[in-house]
């Protein structure tokens, strides 16, 4: 999550001090991982340098002076652009799992176990989130729901892949079979007769991995 743009969003209602931004961020979005003060002030310095915030006032205190930050017009535009932009769908997990399943099949391991272990882990996390939801306020519930729906989508993929393991194993076996040197190479899978393109198993979903 972008800390900078979240700060800008928090500043849009009213100017705030750095410590106040940290407290609001930790309460609403921290999920048990509070920001370090170093992150807070380096983020504010960057926003200041980019002209997205400005210093609204300086208050002397017992310790260092406390700066109050306000969002600029360019900052509001930046928040608006960020909010209107969809997040990149995260396919990292499926990509890794797909590789594990293929490697499991190629090395003669039980690929269903790989998927079942992942399913159990997903459900363990879902139980934890469901308990957290029961004890939390509405904000907790909404954040947990977001994670739960994503995990559920992963689980559907796991279930479907489990159902297709035999097919996948057969396809991989066909691809790995040595081709006789004197005959022309056969297609990796029989071409359908109804005009559809021949099926193949992709080597990966995407060359680009998200982190």
């Amino acid at each position, binding site marked *: 999550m972008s800390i900078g743009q979240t700060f800008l969003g928090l500043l849009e209602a009213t100017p705030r001090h750095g410590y106040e931004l940290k407290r609001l961020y930790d309460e609403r979005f921290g999920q048990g991982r509070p920001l370090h003060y170093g992150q807070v002030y380096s983020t504010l310095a960057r926003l200041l340098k980019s002209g997205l915030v400005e210093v609204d006032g300086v208050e002397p205190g017992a310790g260092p002076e406390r700066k109050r930050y306000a969002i600029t017009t360019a900052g509001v535009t930046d928040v608006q652009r960020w909010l209107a932009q969809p997040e990149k769908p995260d396919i990292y997990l499926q990509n890794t799992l797909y590789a594990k399943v293929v490697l499991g099949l190629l090395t003669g391991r039980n690929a269903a*176990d790989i998927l*079942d*272990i992942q*399913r*159990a*882990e*997903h*459900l363990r996390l*879902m*139980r934890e*989130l*469901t308990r957290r939801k*029961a004890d939390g306020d509405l904000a907790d519930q909404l954040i947990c729901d977001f994670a*739960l*729906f994503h*995990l*559920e989508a992963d*689980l*559907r993929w796991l*279930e479907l892949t*489990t*159902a297709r393991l035999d097919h996948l194993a057969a396809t991989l076996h066909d691809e790995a079979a040595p081709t006789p040197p004197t005959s022309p190479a056969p297609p990796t899978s029989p071409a359908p007769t109804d005009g559809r393109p021949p099926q193949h198993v992709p080597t990966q979903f995407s060359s680009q991995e998200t982190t």
Partner: protein
Amino acid sequence: MTEPTEKQPLLAGIELHKTYGSTPALDGATLRIWAGEIVAVMGASGSGKSTLLHCLAGIVRPDAGEVRYRDRELSAMSDAERSALRRGEFGFVFQFGQLVPELTCLENVALPLRLDRVRRREAERRAAEWLTRLEVDDVAGQRPGEISGGQGQRVAVARALVTAPRVVFADEPTGALDSLNGEQVMRLLTEAARQAGAAVVLVTHEPRVAAYADREIVVRDGRTRETVLAPR
């Protein structure tokens, strides 16, 4: 019957086989339920999970294998004994509430008690308490056709728990509900069952519903598959 111990499950289905015509529904399924736990039975459509629930609940007799409730084998019981067991010890929630349309919600919840010859006033007092716990006391005087699906399922949960069962069987209890109503039903069902100390056998294909359980069992091609734990 003796009380179940920590080592003895409350309910167990061992190596269950069941075939409908030439279609095998269960092919050696095994499942043990301990007192007070909530277990999700998961699996794709046609995997055999509902047949497993019906066998465990004594609704369907398996072709082979045994179902034990505490220290008794269900197939050794007469039909009357199994009916009495289902009425006294088990509660049921199905996908579509299956409430009696001619009765009010209060009368529906009181019905299992009335069948057990509890006097009307007492049965309705206990039914009203359960409707309040399930947050549907406002529909007590209405008939099932006059209330929403979510309210109907909560009435069905109240009816399942009013007899203080040891096991509640829930077959896709949120299958006909939207996400928000499904969530309310699951929260109330599991809270009420935990408070009452009842075990729940929850059949579902929805992971978010299964996440309300303490553990899950997967049924695949009529066989159960215990959770495979990741190495730690």
